[in-house]
């Protein structure tokens, strides 16, 4: 009698331990996905920052009257590089997107520039990168949502906190972005 009770207790304990181990591993896997998708955003931000000096050089000769626009771009780029927290980075990156948009808007007034092969390539490259930034953020938010749902739902929420898992923050999109996610310069 006592022996079989003991066995039942042992079995229950083993099952619970196995469930916790399974949950822990699944959460670790998700957490790594979150990290990885965040790194993907950084890759794209860096790519854009690398392209901007080329753009400024290509444009400088043509745009004599747009000094402030170019300065704004350089400033916004520096801000993205300096930003450390995800929140700062998001804001600085949105700023840079805005300044780039205004640059490509005024480029409409310079037919010579618009016909420039190098400029056209850079424009395509930057538009592609802008979209990749948006897409990598979107993917990050998707993964964060899966992760957060997992640790907030019962019974996971009882254990997740004890195991040291915290909710991850997702990116807020600016009002401008919500209107039009994809960029077409």
């Amino acid at each position, binding site marked *: 009698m006592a022996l079989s009770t003991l066995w039942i207790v042992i079995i229950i304990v083993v099952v619970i331990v196995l469930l916790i181990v399974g949950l822990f591993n699944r959460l670790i896997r998700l957490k790594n*996905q979150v990290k990885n*998708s965040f790194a*993907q955003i950084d890759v*794209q931000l860096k790519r854009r920052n690398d392209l901007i000096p080329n753009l400024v050089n290509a444009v400088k000769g043509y745009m004599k009257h747009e000094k402030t626009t170019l300065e704004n771009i350089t400033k916004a780029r520096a801000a993205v590089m300096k930003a450390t927290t995800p929140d700062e980075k998001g804001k600085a990156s949105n700023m840079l997107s805005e300044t780039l948009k205004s640059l490509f808007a005024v480029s409409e007034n310079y037919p010579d520039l618009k016909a420039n092969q190098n400029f056209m*390539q850079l424009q*395509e*490259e930057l*538009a*592609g*990168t802008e*979209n*990749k930034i*948006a*897409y*990598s953020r*979107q*993917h990050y938010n*998707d*993964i964060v949502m*899966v992760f957060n749902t997992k640790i907030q739902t019962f019974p996971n929420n009882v254990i997740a906190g004890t195991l040291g898992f915290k909710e991850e923050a997702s990116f807020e999109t600016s009002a401008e972005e919500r209107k039009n*996610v*994809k960029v*077409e310069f």
Partner: protein
Amino acid sequence: MRITFDEIRRNNVKTWFLIVLFFLIISLFGFAFGLYMGDIFMGLIITTIFGVIYTLVVFSTGDRMIMSISGAKEVTKQEYPHLFHTVEGLSLAAGLPTPKCYVIKDSALNAFATGRKPENASIAVTTGLLEKLNRQELEGVVAHEMSHIKNNDIKVMMLAAVLVGVILLLSQFLLRSFLWGGKGSGRKNSGNATIIFIVVGLVLAILAPIIAELIKLSISRKREYMADASGAMFTRYPPGLASALKKISKDPDPLVDTANKATAHLFISSPFRKKKSGRSRLFSTHPPIEERIKRLEEM
């Protein structure tokens, strides 16, 4: 997420179903072939060996086979920056490695994806598609292909294409050798065996294309709706694909010259000219494009 996992599991089951069905049909051919040669056992062994080798080859190079059948050439980022940016962007959105990009020189508007697994997938688009669609529309189409890749539809579709292809080829071969052999006098079969052979050969010749048709049907139509829906999840913009499908349906030249019966189900919209009858709808590899547009617009 859950849907994707379910889809992947279902696709793995379908993969096995296809392979088993393929071997059953191949053995039937082996039986007929063996009967023809006068040694059924030998015929079965030969076709089984052929089947195993062919399946292995298909698993390792099926995507390249399909690409070369379809006349698709792998392209570089320098040649098609716009296509590459779109594909790279959507692989980020789907959380997948970037697939290889192929282009088919054809004015028709069409695209497909293939490969054994998401890690070595390929996407092919026609030059007509690149010329006539704007960025949002191209993104919609690429996102549709991306969800085929993510759900592992591509593996089943690839297997179906190459296995169906070889069954069609074999049944034609059998029919021809049957017609040719009928006149030859070299056979040492008795009259009885000839009759059995004729019956088996005829049954096979009739059955094989029907089975091939069934395989394709079990694979395509529902998953096109699925891929439309999850593709719209990646772009967050269903009107993009809807407007692309509209352009595709209005295109006067839907025919992709290099598409054939075995590869038709791979494409985003049927590469053949539409026949306006109820029967063609029942046996078509794709759901009606108007219905797909409607569903996208209701999202």
